[in-house]
């Protein structure tokens, strides 16, 4: 397999495998946030604030994977 094909394969794998984890994490965060709001609708303000905060952490990991894919595709 020549390096060009390998590079395309690497870009695809980096992007897809790296973004599975954060997607699952954000889904779980939303799940627990909605459960909390369903139990206690008056606390929806603080729950939403904390949900967005933790989602930022999970999203950052996905962005790391995206950066690696972009660097592989366009610069290497």
């Amino acid at each position, binding site marked *: 397999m020549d390096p060009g094909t390998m590079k395309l394969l690497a870009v695809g794998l980096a992007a897809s495998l790296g973004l599975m984890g954060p997607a699952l994490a954000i889904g779980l965060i939303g799940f627990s946030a909605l459960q909390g709001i369903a139990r206690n609708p008056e606390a929806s303000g603080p729950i939403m604030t904390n949900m*967005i*905060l933790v989602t*930022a952490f999970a999203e*950052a990991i996905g*962005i*790391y994977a995206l950066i690696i894919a*972009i660097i592989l595709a*366009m610069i290497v």
Partner: protein
Amino acid sequence: MPRKGCLGCSFPVIILVVVILLALFVIGFLSGPLGKSMFGDLGLPFGTERPIPSLPAETAFELFGFPIANSVVGAWITIIILVVFSYLVTRRMKIIPGRLQGLFESLLGWLYNFCKNVAGEENGRRFFPVVATIFLFVAFNAWLSLIPGFGSIEIINPEGHHIHLIRGANTDINMPLALALASFCFVEFFGLKTLGIRYLSKFLNVGQFFRSLGQIFKGKVKAGLSGLITGAIMIIVGILETLSEFVRIVSFTFRLFGNMTAGEILLLIAIFLIPWLFALPFYGLELLVGFVQALIFAGLTLVFLTLATAHH
């Protein structure tokens, strides 16, 4: 008699708008690379060239022998706009505000309430300048890089390459790094100022270890030994805390840099694939992402400041 359609316009107007949008979309599709590969080259001159993103910022011009990058020019424009707006708003402040003053009062009031909700009453007041500065700088950097002119004006730089004159400041990795270092320094400063030198006992957690050593020498061997093991664990926890303080810098940098650069590349590729109309939803996404990333940077700084100044 034109009937009332949706959005308050009459039906003929709506049909006209939809037809114009469809025409723009079809022309853009045919002149981009997708249309060219499907229908052949029709000679429409509206295509753009393939974007070549370069992650390090290029030198734009030389100032007194000092090379200035094009993202620094973008940061200067943000600073000028922020300073001019602040001057205009506070020039003749009235008790019942006019429109511009009211707009900025509502924005800063919302930020102040956010600080007070997270950090408490008096801590919110102390941390508000740092948090508001970081939020406004990052948000205006992100929003101003969507204006036409950023990334379209081409010049020839002193090294002879064709580069863009202005680039959004958040897409250069040095700017998020500088903001992350500033946030780190402020967290340590406020922690040391509030708690004194005892703030460092969070990182060098050797009190328990030496206390249990003293217990062994005084004769209480069993309690001393269990305390010794707990003390060793506390030392390792202290080392992990120190490490997490430094990893925070890396995480801040790459979160902001990654979001902004990915958004810029997404916009460039969207404009390249189908010119003229396909990029509009991504513009909306970029507005939202700029605001959310600024809020997250400022909000996380606020959370770490609150944690650093919490009394045990």
